[in-house]
């Protein structure tokens, strides 16, 4: 607010447009004030963009003013940063998040609260034991606006300028793959979580710093096929499947993998369509699927359409014995929105809510962040943090290469059970299909877990 008044009083100040930007920056500062440390950095980046914009927008004749202004803004930024500094010598973890942009909603559910929880827990214990002393952990976050190019720049910045000690994996298959070379270049261990691909072997061969925890595309499709097969064996499901997918790398890859697998398992695909990401009205899709009178409905969908498809299915009373939708079915918001209507709905993910470790984690998550964790990758993302924590303490010093070797060689005790990476840096233990039962999204299919429940048929929407 100080510099707003300075500039308003200046007589030679003509560009009223500038006022707007100054107001925005002032507002940003106001926001920053209340933000936790991980958000501070992103606001600073925004500030930089604002200042850049500001300079390019205004054709100031008085160069002095510009310098004064920049100096002032710089001082304020520096002041803010110094107040946010933690106690002696923290271990720095960098993460490039989608704080804005199309994937921000998912990131906010699955990743950010887990980082918050872990930082709080570790620092409460006094930090990580490295080199004979306890060191607190600190997170440096950048927003990439869900833009791969920005993402790569931010990773570089974390490595070169902030010199972070470790990095946390980004949200989304595309981002984990697109940014893999840059993480590999700086040789940070990268334990990918929100990433499902069939290219794990090729990727880890090229990028030996990379690890996978959430399974492969085939594993996921196999989970769905085996769930439907089980229901058919129970005699509660016919073999006509309606399949739709979001026309995006994720949906297309899953649909392409699923098509032959369904046919192989003796299912008949009676409806097979895609729709563009962000389609405002999915009623033609659900109406079309219903007209094909399927026994099962499978949607390889993204969050906004997962919500919209379920709502349309309820409205159209899409009467199927199995209803599956992919990302966001496991979100607490899904059950909050639909209540008891989604009893029996199948979706990507699932967990075993009965293990003590899982229960302890879920309680702590809700207590610290005020949010219920999702029933899929949340726990696995937290497991990533546990693996890093155990590996860093196991090595006993800040040595990325040694931590990578340690992760390859050891088994880790995590919230999702023991995690051990195979020769392709892949942990082949994950839940793949969940089902909503009495307000919990319980795993009904898995790879290597062995604790899934038996699926049941969906009985109407009410």
């Amino acid at each position, binding site marked *: 607010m100080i510099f707003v008044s300075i500039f308003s009083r200046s007589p030679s100040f003509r560009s*009223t*447009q500038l*006022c*707007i*930007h100054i*107001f*925005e920056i002032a*507002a*940003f500062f106001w*926001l920053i004030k*209340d*933000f936790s440390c991980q*958000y501070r950095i992103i*606001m600073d980046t*925004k500030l930089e*963009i*604002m200042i850049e*914009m500001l300079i390019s927008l205004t054709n100031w004749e008085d160069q002095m003013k510009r310098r004064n202004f920049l100096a002032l803004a710089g001082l304020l930024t520096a002041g803010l940063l110094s107040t946010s500094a933690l106690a002696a010598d923290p271990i720095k973890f960098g993460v490039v998040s989608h*704080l*804005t942009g*199309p994937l*921000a*909603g998912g990131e*906010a*559910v699955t990743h*950010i609260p887990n980082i918050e929880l872990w930082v709080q827990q570790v620092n409460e214990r006094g930090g990580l034991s490295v080199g004979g002393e306890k060191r607190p952990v600190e997170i440096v976050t950048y927003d990439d606006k*869900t833009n791969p190019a920005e993402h790569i720049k931010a990773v570089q910045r974390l490595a070169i300028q902030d010199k972070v000690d470790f990095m946390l994996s980004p949200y989304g298959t595309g981002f984990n793959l697109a940014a893999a070379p840059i993480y590999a270049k700086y040789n940070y261990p990268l334990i990918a979580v929100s990433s499902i691909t069939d290219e794990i072997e090729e990727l880890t061969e090229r990028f030996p710093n990379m690890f996978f925890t959430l399974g492969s595309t085939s594993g996921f499709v196999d989970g769905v096929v085996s769930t439907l097969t089980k229901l058919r064996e129970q005699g509660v499901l016919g073999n006509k499947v309606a399949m*739709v997918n979001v*026309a995006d790398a994720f949906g297309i890859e899953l649909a392409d993998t699923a098509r032959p697998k369904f046919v192989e398992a003796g299912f008949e695909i009676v409806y097979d*369509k*895609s*729709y*563009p990401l*962000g*389609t*405002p*009205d*999915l*009623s*033609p*899709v659900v*109406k*079309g699927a219903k007209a094909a009178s399927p026994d099962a409905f499978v949607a390889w969908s993204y*969050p*906004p359409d997962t*919500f*919209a498809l379920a*709502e*349309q299915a*309820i*409205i*159209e*009373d899409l009467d199927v014995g199995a209803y599956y939708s992919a990302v*966001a079915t496991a*979100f607490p*918001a899904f059950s*909050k*929105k*639909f*209540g008891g209507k989604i009893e029996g709905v199948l979706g990507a993910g699932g967990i075993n809510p009965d293990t003590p470790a899982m229960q302890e984690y879920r309680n702590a998550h809700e207590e610290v962040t005020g949010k219920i964790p999702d029933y899929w990758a949340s726990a696995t993302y937290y497991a990533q943090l546990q693996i890093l924590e155990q590996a860093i303490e196991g090595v006993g010093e800040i040595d990325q290469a040694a931590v990578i070797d340690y992760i390859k060689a050891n088994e880790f005790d995590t919230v999702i059970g023991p995690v051990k990476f195979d020769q392709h840096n892949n942990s082949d233990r994950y839940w793949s299909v969940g089902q909503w039962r009495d307000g919990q999204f319980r795993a009904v299919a898995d790879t290597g877990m062995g604790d899934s429940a038996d699926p049941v048929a969906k009985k109407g929407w009410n």
Partner: protein
Amino acid sequence: MDIVISGLLLGGSYALIAMGLNLQYGVARIMNLANGELLVLGALAAFWVFTTTGMSPLVTLFAVAIVGFAGSWAVYRIFLAPLVRRSANQGQLEVDSILATFGMSFFLVGVMVSIHSEYFTYSFLASPVALLGTTVALNRLVAFCFAVLIGGGLYLWLNRTRAGLAVRAVAVSPEAAGLVGINVDRVSALAFAVGGMVTGVAGVLVSTFITLDASVGVIFTMKALIIVIMGGVGDIRGSIIAALILGMVESAVATLIDPGLTLASAYMIFLLILLFRPQGLFGRRAA
């Protein structure tokens, strides 16, 4: 029949999205890039109030209308009027207003992320209604009724009242309107404020059936812009008709051909209109 009904409903929501921008761009000459963010802000308000107090979005709607009007008025008076005053010509103002509102859109996204960074999703009137042999969602039907009310109201206001006449005069020529004694500054502020109000209300209505998040505004800005340009800048009728055409075509393509081609068909129509009637369906050719 399926196609016509769902096309009408979709077109109605498109009209809701576009009418506000049309007033702001057509009359106040502000190319408001923060239009979509304002819409999402309305949606966030509805979501927030509904999930915390359980109050119906149809009640929140009135509060949003008032706040949207007052807020847009203030934004115009404080931030945009100076741009209007200093700009030598229309082109200059367009560039300035784009840059200024672009900045505002960042600010609004930041505010919304800090309030609720997850998806704004809730269930309101999500029940089936049988209508002329097809089923539609009640929330979409309600939104459509509001779209008809708002569209009709705006049309009557613009064509049957004195204030509306002044608004239309400014839309045609701010210079000439000033010469015949219309307070152009005031009328522009009024148009901008009404535009903001309509957009905020549209956000409330759209949020009952579309899952939004803090960053999704730009998609609505683009859609609104396409519709406004298709219909003709500064003409409410044009926006409504363009929105209905778009809704019908998308729904027909999704049902008859393939849902994957809806986006392509929408841009196809946009392209055709730009090629054969660059001033928009109801637009006047630039002098």
